[in-house]
């Protein structure tokens, strides 16, 4: 970083602080003796918690009324290609940053006892994973974004491959290749974008997002479609959107609990975040072209994920497939391209992180005790483990979308947005999507009943002990937010409102520009719109 030169910098370097804390933690741990397990865990927890506290402060300081990027830091990195270390947050990335820093210490605390082998590497990798995901949400430079996007794969690959279940190698490789397949195309698209910028009058090669926001919408439609698809494929695999989802059940089932929590809670959001941050505003015309297909796949995912989830025998796989359904909602809301849908999607990303993260935690807790996740091995646990049953019930209801808990707010806004969307132009998406609300009740209530209700007949289950204090401490913070968002979502909606509006307007304006051009009889931009 010898070339480093400060270009602009406002506020303090708070974002870099949030990024650096887990990175320092990981470096510190690599220097320590592997024997000192307790201290390694404590340091991991301390650094990730410190990062959370700093991001909570960021949340408080953040001005929700502004749609601008805030806490921006920009240092030139490769000046000849106008690549820079350019980070900042708007309301949408802010919420995802806080979610990430919130879930990481929880995931570490959850694996406090269950992970003992190669602990040093594990904690270090978890912290590096946090750095990677945080970077993805903060990056305002496409090249920097790509670096974080790929960097994040490595720790996750090892977490699944080393601390995973029986078929961990297959799952890890599948996860890696699936994601790589998409992101290589994205890299090509990023380079093309930079090149395209240089072909503009007076333009230079750049990967700066803010500059590309201005330039990219003007890409001729024939090329714009391809560039859009290269980005969208990469993101849709990550989401995962049907039919690119089959890496998810394997990765989830094989990953250790903490890995699943981060995978479902944060990593999947990188896909939906990418759609919001890059696909829509950079390629508004292509967005309108592909909108019906992507929204259609989202609706298929909502129903398909729910139905396949319903018939799973392995509880963890059930939760994994339910993610396909829930993320389908998020994608549907994004492609409604209105404020209600966008805000619903943003809050639903957070909701899914909390609810599904908590479901994986809960399933992990019972797995730690019984070393099985098969639903049929349980039954009647409510009598033996009342606290566990109660907390599970709350989280389940949040996932079902019960009003008063978080899931409802997101699903309602998304469906409302899809329903009134003038761009989708038909009620069919929303009506079909709303059936997912019924199916969610079916698969979750049915599995809950089979695990918790009925008589406690299996002698193995009669020895089960209820949750320990550590386990309760892991779950309660999540549940606090589940209820908070349910009763007073405005705390969070306020922060992202301006940013969501901004993105929607960026897309709408492009559309509007074309319409006005059409009125003026400008044939060239009419061809662009097609």
């Amino acid at each position, binding site marked *: 970083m010898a070339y480093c030169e400060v270009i602009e910098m406002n506020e303090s370097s708070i974002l870099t602080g949030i990024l650096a804390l887990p990175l320092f933690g990981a470096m510190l741990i690599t220097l320590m003796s592997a024997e000192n397990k307790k201290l390694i865990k404590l340091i991991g927890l301390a650094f990730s918690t410190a990062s959370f506290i700093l991001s909570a402060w960021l949340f408080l300081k953040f001005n929700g009324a502004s749609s601008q990027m805030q806490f921006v830091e920009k240092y030139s990195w490769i000046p000849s290609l106008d690549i820079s270390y350019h980070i900042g947050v708007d309301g949408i990335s802010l919420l995802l940053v806080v979610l990430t820093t919130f879930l990481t210490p929880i995931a570490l605390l959850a694996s406090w006892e269950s992970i003992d082998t190669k602990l040093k590497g594990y904690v270090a990798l978890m912290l590096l994973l946090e750095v990677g995901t945080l970077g993805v949400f903060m990056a305002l430079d496409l090249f920097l974004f790509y670096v974080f996007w790929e960097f994040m794969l490595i720790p996750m690959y090892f977490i699944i491959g080393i601390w995973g279940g029986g078929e961990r190698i297959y799952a890890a490789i599948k996860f890696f290749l699936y994601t790589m397949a998409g992101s290589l195309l994205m890299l090509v698209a990023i380079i093309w974008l930079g090149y395209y910028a240089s072909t503009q009058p007076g333009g230079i090669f750049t990967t700066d997002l803010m500059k590309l926001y201005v330039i990219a919408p003007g890409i001729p439609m024939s090329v714009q479609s391809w560039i859009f698809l290269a980005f969208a494929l990469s993101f849709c695999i990550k989401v995962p959107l049907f039919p690119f989802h089959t*890496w998810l059940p394997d990765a989830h089932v094989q990953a250790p609990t903490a890995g699943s929590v981060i995978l479902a809670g944060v990593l999947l959001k990188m896909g939906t975040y990418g759609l919001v941050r890059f696909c829509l505003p950079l390629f508004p015309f292509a967005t309108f072209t592909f909108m019906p297909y992507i929204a259609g796949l989202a609706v298929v995912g909502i129903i398909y994920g729910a139905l396949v989830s319903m018939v799973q025998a392995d509880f963890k796989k059930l939760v994994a497939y339910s993610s396909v359904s829930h993320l389908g909602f998020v994608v549907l809301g994004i492609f409604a391209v209105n404020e209600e849908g966008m805000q619903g999607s943003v809050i639903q990303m957070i909701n899914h992180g909390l609810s599904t993260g908590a479901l994986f935690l809960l399933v992990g807790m019972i797995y730690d005790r019984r070393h099985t996740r098969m639903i049929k091995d349980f039954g009647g646990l*409510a009598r033996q483990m009342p606290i566990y049953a109660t907390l599970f019930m709350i989280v389940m209801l949040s996932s079902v979308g019960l009003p008063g808990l978080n899931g409802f707010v997101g699903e309602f806004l998304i469906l409302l947005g899809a329903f009134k969307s003038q761009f989708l132009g038909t009620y069919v998406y929303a009506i079909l999507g709303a059936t997912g609300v019924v199916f969610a009740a079916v698969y979750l209530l*049915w599995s809950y009943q089979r695990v918790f209700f009925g008589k406690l007949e299996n002698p193995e289950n009669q020895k089960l002990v209820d949750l320990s204090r550590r386990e309760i401490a892991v779950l309660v913070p999540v549940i606090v937010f589940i209820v908070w968002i349910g009763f007073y979502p405005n705390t969070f909606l306020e922060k992202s409102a301006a940013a969501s509006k901004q993105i929607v307007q960026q897309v709408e304006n492009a559309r509007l520009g074309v319409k006005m051009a059409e009125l003026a009889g400008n044939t060239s931009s009419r061809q662009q719109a097609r």
Partner: protein
Amino acid sequence: MAHQYIQYAVFLPLAGFLINGLFGRKLKSELLVGIIGSSTIGIGFLIAAATFLEMLGSPPEERSHIVNLFNWITAGDLSVPVAYQVDQLSILMTLIVTGVGFLIHVYSIGYMHGDPGFWRFFAYLNLFIFAMLNLVLADNFLLLFLGWEGVGLCSYLLIGFWYDRKFEKGTTGDAAKKAFIVNRIGDFGFLIGMFLIFTTFGSLNFESVFAHASTLSVGTPVVMWITLALFLGATGKSAQIPLFIWLPDAMAGPTPVSALIHAATMVTAGIYMVARCSVLFALAPVTMEVVAIVGACTALMAASIGLVQNDIKKVLAYSTVSQLGYMFLALGVGAFAAGLFHLLTHAFFKALLFLGSGAVIHAMHQEQDIRKMGGLKSYLPTTYKTFLVGTIAIAGIPPLAGFFSKDEILWQTFAHGDYILWLMMLIGAGLTAFYMFRLLSLTFDGEKRWDSGKHPHEAPATMTVPLIVLAVLSVIGGFVGVPASFGGGNAIEHWLEPIFEKANEKMSVGIHDVEVIEYILMALSVGVALAGIYLARQWYAKKSAAPERMSTRFAGFYKLLLNKYLVDEAYEAAIITPTVKGSEKLLWRVVDVGMIDWCVDAIARAFGFMSRTVRVVQTGVAQSYALVFLVGVIAIVGWLIVK
């Protein structure tokens, strides 16, 4: 100004829920838990009563207030507050919910005595009241929906309260899950209705939606779709065709739950919602017709099933479905006030009957089969007398509560010109009288059919006092709606008039004149009821071979009734099994694993194959590399020479 305190009536039960839910187990005192649970509702009732008195004392146009608390959800054009609307309709519902709710809470102290989940029970009941009050007091659709789903949740929790018990062919968990999912199907309709309302009117707030709607003309298509979607929601919550199937199974819950949730309050939410949206429904004649027909068909169908059931609570459950059908019929013919009136009287006598059945079940050590009862009259005198009052009230014998309200519905149906529906309801009235007196006679009259090991005894005062209060209300409750033809003022209709004003304008319904025909119809319905009672007494009060004879002569029909028209089985075969099997065999095994994943693995294998093929070149043997090198050089040189 008492109405400003209405939010305490709503939030006190929430506090009760939290206290009992978090610390109930540690309190270790049933009395304390019971007092916390009941008093939160009791105070709520007092606040509601004070508000009611305040409203009585003010002129009708000043009776409506909005109490705004905070902004709940804001996004884009949507802004939904947590705000309560206190008006003639919501205060009536609040009084019923807190009044009957309080009595049932008190009753539960006795009924649930000794149950290990005593504190859990009271926590759930309080949560239910909280949700129900949100439902009836909300000033917008979304908050109503919060209550709507909230009561559904409590219903789920309470049906499955004894979660490790068997119930019929399955478990209580099956019944609870069924209730929630069937209700969710209705809620799907409600959601769609809300989306349509928002896109049409740009708001979810009652006041602005209804103000906007009253400018529309009758028969606007979008309003028809809105009301049909909302009505689908109502059929779920209020157990009407095609979604009634969950309510009979809901009897798996403890009896006070059946009385409070599955008779007096929650199941009437659909009635309330339709009445609240009366303006919208008045704009959609097609929907009104659908509501009336669904109501009448449900009423008759459920009454016929009730004729042959042998479980004391099952009879009452089908009776509830049937009576709710009556209420929907009233709404469908535009007699909104009559529907609400029947809702009120039904809350009294059906809560009474359920609590009475609870006292019987309690005395008979959880026995619910009326074939194994009989002769309980002398063992349970208070229960018997109050049960008798409730039975007469529901049978429609003047001057008890049920008579006035049911007769109003029959008359309004007739006056509306729906003679076929009226005839169906007349038959229904006869069936109601019959099955209720069959139930009464088999339970309390005749000889003992239970084994000598049981020693039935009257319930404690916490249980009998609520019975007596409800019995009194069942006797006098009808007087709030004595029709003009009887010289009554029909107070309830006048009270609710401002609420239904706009709807009535749309339907151009005036207050009808007293006609001779009204008396004739009244006499007819009382006659039919008396006939039903007479037959039931003849057949069941003493030993009689008649029922046996009937069931063998019409064996096919009897079986059909006994098996509830096989609706459950039809749903199972047509919807549930294909969905589950299809999801597993087709979607998961074939599409997911067989197709998508196979492709993914195939691509990976293809790359593997290619790599293995190309790898052959990389032998590591220097000689072969040199050979290839030589061949290459010769080829290039050769090519250059030839060129």
